[in-house]
């Protein structure tokens, strides 16, 4: 996939992974694995960026005798997902136009 396109998509992917319930680092990677390969370092950068943009909050909780960080989506994060859906409706329209078979002006 084009790298620029991928970069924009990954942020929303991570948000989608936590949109229904709070999740933690490794689980996010597992959930997204069927769709996109995400490395630990990439995920760290994305989580930092989303936190700085107030799209998620971080909470440390105890799990199995050690500490684990849980990420929860915020209203701003949910809004970003909605914006993404609208953007892609437009992109779908363009896609249909680009892949349309035969155009009217060909018929002379």
């Amino acid at each position, binding site marked *: 996939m084009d790298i620029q396109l991928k970069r924009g998509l990954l942020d929303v992917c991570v948000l989608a992974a936590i949109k229904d319930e709070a999740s*933690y*680092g*490794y*689980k996010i*990677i597992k959930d997204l694995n069927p769709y996109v390969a995400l*490395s*630990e*370092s990439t995920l*760290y*950068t994305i989580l930092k960026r989303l936190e700085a943009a107030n799209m998620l909050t971080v909470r440390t909780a105890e799990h*199995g005798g*050690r*500490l*684990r*960080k849980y990420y929860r989506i915020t209203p701003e994060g949910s809004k970003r997902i909605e914006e993404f859906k609208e953007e892609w409706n437009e992109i779908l329209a363009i896609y249909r136009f680009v892949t349309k078979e035969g155009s009217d002006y060909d018929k002379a």
Partner: protein
Amino acid sequence: MTKLDFIMTLHKKLSDLPQEEVEERLRFYTEMIEDRMEEGIPEEEAVAAVGSVDEIAAQIQAEVSAVKTQKEPNKKQRKGGQIALLILGSPLWVPLLIAAFAVGLSLYVSLWSVIISFWAAFGSMVACGVAGLVASIGMALGGDPMSSLALAGASAVCLGLAIFLFFGCKALTDATVRLTAKLFQRRKKEEAK
């Protein structure tokens, strides 16, 4: 590589970076390794899955130094600020500078007037001495040897004092001329820069 090896190697590689940032990232990676191990993935595999130590270290170094350079103050901005302050403060230091220069100038002028008055004293001493001598000769010729002698003596004293004054004035004048030359040399040097 074991989990401990992983952490310690990264610690060593990143020892000259701000430790707070490094610690935060290391905690993140450790958590990921431990989560995989919890799933049943063997330790070595879990560590390998997180990524190569060298790559991660290079990445952290790049990211952390990017944060650092943003925080450093702009040196150019600081110099511009200093110049602005100088201009803003000019109503203060310009008159002070002018006053200091004026005081210096008046001191210099007074020095010369003192020297001139000494030379004047020298001149009058010479004049008195010579005049007295001439008068004493006149008195001698006129038949008043006593007065003539007395006047001659006084004239000789005047001339003697004049000689002392001469050397004193010359010394003072030379010293002042040398001082003036030094001041002008310094100014010429500054202009030449």
